[in-house]
């Protein structure tokens, strides 16, 4: 018998992802296709992750040229690379001990890069000052989030620490909270109002939470994941006032801030909204906001770089946060370099600017077109409806599953929307993920798929999805 039969209860309680059963089947299908088994499709289109490169979007040339030059500086001899690529690579290498990407760096990140990130934040927020000593670069934003949660969540305490989280919410944060022994307190977003965040709902959630735990944190995702909303300033102000009134630590997951569509929509950071509300809120509400290189136009998920900016935290607490991060050594240096490029892209006049503009424009236009097409197609199909996708990387349409389908799913021991996704995979070769992965109102079903793909791929997805959906609804009518 294993010495490890006893595992932390918190870990046991972490839910098994629906994704794993779909991923397993996907691998099998890929093998079958390789062996020549005939299917109605030649390849599986994987849009189950918020992973633009996996979905076919190309990396931006400038950042990759800079990375290559930093990894192998001999590339900078001669004229192979543009002047601005070389200058950036040289600047970044000078900032590293021994001039190598292979060195460790300071705990919170390469100091020059941290300074530049803080300048970027100040520009983004229309001048609201950002201080480098409040910023930690980490191996992806979830790593930083976990560290902040470690400080917040007292797993020994009774009652347990509670963190209010939205429904729907991407699963990684929920798993993190469970692993730490926190109580996840759900607050439901209003689907019929474009997934709006209702303060009354926050109040209800908080009130019910008080019975079972000690609510300490309020986690918001803006722009949303999986639901593609972008919060209005007014809504954000309500959230801030609520956090102040109930004495909640505000955790703002803003990793999709560069993925905003539609001419009317604007991303405002929680930091900016907070600052604009003035004293006393602006210098008392404690806030952690998270960003990353994984999303947006760069989509560099695999490089693992994100950051957290901490606002209004107690200096004594900051000291312990530093110790926590220091035991992780530091974030991957290449990822940090990508972060530098993200926050300081080529400017007009730079030799690399024309290509950079061309590539980013292309991605922007394709994704905007994808959004338009997704809403158009899905809303035209019976039993399918999609709220406007204002931001983020996903569509999260609602599927009105017929009772027969729900029953069949139950007989197979599957969640109804997992059943739908499995069939979509088998019959149409599209890998998406079920709404049950993220939480949803009881009796409703959704699927999530990434919309940051090349346009041709999105057309193909929509073609396959339409065909499949009509057939499925027919079969179970």
């Amino acid at each position, binding site marked *: 018998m*294993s010495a490890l039969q006893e*595992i932390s209860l918190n870990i046991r309680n972490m839910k098994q992802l629906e994704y794993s059963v779909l991923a397993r089947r996907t691998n099998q299908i890929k093998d079958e296709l390789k062996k020549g088994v005939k299917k109605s499709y030649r390849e599986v289109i994987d849009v189950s992750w918020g992973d633009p490169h996996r979905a076919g979007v190309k990396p931006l040339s400038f950042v990759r040229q800079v990375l290559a030059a930093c*990894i192998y500086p001999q590339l900078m001899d001669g004229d192979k690379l543009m002047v601005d690529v070389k200058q950036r690579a040289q600047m970044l290498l000078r900032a590293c001990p021994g001039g190598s990407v292979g060195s460790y760096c300071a705990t919170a990140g390469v*100091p020059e890069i941290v*300074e530049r990130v803080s300048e970027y934040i100040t520009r983004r927020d229309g001048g609201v000052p950002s201080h480098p000593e409040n910023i930690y670069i980490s*191996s992806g934003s979830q790593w930083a989030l976990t560290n902040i949660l470690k400080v917040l969540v007292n797993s020994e305490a009774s009652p347990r620490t509670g963190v209010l989280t939205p429904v729907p919410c991407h699963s990684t944060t929920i798993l993190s909270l469970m692993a730490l022994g926190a109580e996840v307190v759900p607050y439901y977003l209003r689907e019929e109002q474009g997934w709006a965040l209702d303060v009354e709902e926050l109040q209800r959630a908080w009130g019910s939470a008080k019975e079972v735990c000690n609510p300490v944190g309020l986690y918001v995702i803006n722009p949303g994941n999986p639901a593609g909303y972008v919060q209005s300033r007014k809504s954000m102000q309500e959230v801030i006032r609520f956090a102040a009134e109930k004495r909640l630590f505000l955790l703002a997951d803003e990793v999709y801030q560069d993925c905003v569509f539609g001419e009317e929509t604007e991303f405002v950071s929680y930091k900016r909204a907070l600052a604009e509300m003035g004293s006393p809120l602006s210098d008392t509400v404690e806030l952690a906001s998270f960003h990353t290189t994984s999303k947006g136009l760069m989509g560099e998920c695999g490089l693992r770089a994100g950051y957290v900016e901490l606002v209004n935290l107690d*200096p004594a607490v900051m000291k312990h946060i530093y110790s926590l991060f220091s035991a992780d050594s530091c974030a991957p240096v290449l990822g940090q370099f990508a972060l530098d490029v993200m926050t300081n892209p080529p400017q007009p006049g730079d030799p690399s600017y024309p290509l950079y503009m061309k590539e980013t424009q292309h991605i922007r236009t394709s994704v905007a077109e994808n959004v338009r097409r997704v809403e158009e197609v899905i809303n035209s199909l019976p039993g399918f409806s999609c709220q406007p996708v204002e931001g983020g990387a996903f569509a999260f349409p609602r599927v009105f599953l017929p009772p027969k389908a729900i029953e069949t799913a139950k007989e197979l021991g599957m969640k109804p929307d997992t059943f739908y996704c499995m069939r979509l995979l088998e019959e149409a070769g599209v890998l998406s993920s079920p709404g049950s992965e993220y939480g949803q109102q009881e009796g409703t079903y959704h699927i999530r798929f990434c919309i940051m793909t090349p346009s041709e791929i999105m057309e193909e997805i929509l073609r396959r999805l339409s065909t499949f959906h009509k057939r499925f609804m027919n079969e179970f009518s």
Partner: protein
Amino acid sequence: MNHGTSLLWKRRALSSLSSTRRGLPKEKMSENGMMSRPKVLTIDTINPTVKKVEYAVRGPIVQRAVELERELSEGMKKPFAEVIKANIGDAHAMGQQPITFFRQVLALCSYPELLSDSSFPEDAKSRACRILNSCGGNSMGAYSASQGIDSVRQDVARYIERRDGGVPCDPDNIYLTTGASDGIVTMLKLLVCGEGATRTGVMISIPQYPLYSAALAELGAVQINYYLNEEKCWSLDIDELQRALNEARLYCNPRALCIINPGNPTGQVQTRECIEDVIRFAAKERLFLMADEVYQDNVYAEGCQFHSFKKVLFEMGPEYSETVELASFHSTSKCYMGECGFRGGYMEIINMDDDVKAQLTKLLSVRLCSPVPGQALMDLVVNPPQPGEPSYERFIKERTATLSALAEKAKLTEQVLNTVDGISCNPVQGAMYSFPRITIPEKAIQEAKKLGQQPDMFYCMKMLEETGICLVPGSGFGQKEGTYHFRMTILPPTDKLKILLNSVKEFHQRFTQQYS
């Protein structure tokens, strides 16, 4: 050194300084005269285990070193021309050169347009293509599966089989992690449970690499210290393991035994017999074995050889190889690669229950995946150029040069330090550090106590101020009560190392005089 860098450090250092001056944050009047409430997160309300986390390698002495760098760059006069960070096992920072082949392949992976560049050798190009084909969208920017890229795990498994003379390795037991540290912490998270007398206890060597103590503190696990024998070149005594375990059983539930081989900070390379003894002990006492083997290529002393725990386990026959649960860890940060900044690593898990593996998978998914460039680099480390391939000769030349330089520096360090009265250094058999024992005069100990400092921290701080050399005091790693040490890396280039060692010698003599 960049002004910005040091300014940032100063702000961070000052912000924590002022908190100690202020004591607990009090309610304060805000600008409009309203009483503002105390913060949600204060010293009293944060997770109490977080307050116990310390990591000496990046601790207060390093913060002071960075301040000194700033002062130097601003033209302040110091008794030294530069600050030398001999505190951290960072080879490239000290001038070690990367392996050309690895950097070529990684550059090709980053910017595949370079595949048409004739200045890159063919074998680098084919490696790059193979790696890119295993990445989503043929890009290192795509997430990989949480367990790591399939083809890389397979290559790691084959490497382990070759290394261990044919002992089979299942790729399914390989997990690619963000440096070895990530794997170690994840395993500890998995193991720690229970309350009070059933709280998980984890045995760690004293002295130890402080990641272990930090992780155990944060998890609220019980740290069970077993002392390595300094008189016998830091060897591991089974009797001492037994003593530590028996005592610990009275107040916790010991479930794991951690061992670092080659050792950090101590540099000892365990004999095969010792490894067998440890395995027998773990089997008998039903302990999960965690073997930190990140320095496996850093073996210098004659007569010493690296034996992997996995290999020895299997050679001991099915009684052990089918029952003892083992996790072994490796990394791209050390050995001859020194690529710390890539955060590449793997762990191999033996004899773990399927049920427990499922729990491990859940835990790993929270990280999403480890950095893909680090996974790609690990693939190259386990799959280096072979005889006959264009890059082979250069690769061997570079690897040999790096490892023999390290061996030379290990020997030099031991020699010079042992010429100093009051410093006694065990042979640096492996890894990247010396951990000499220092005699601190009683007067200095008293002085240190007055300042509320550990005597060896006091010593190291003085050394830093007077010579610019930044070391880590032994108290950061753990040591027998009443003994003092420091950890110094052997990484600076030989010429610089000679000067360094001399400065240390002179400082020690001065210090001893001053406090006699």
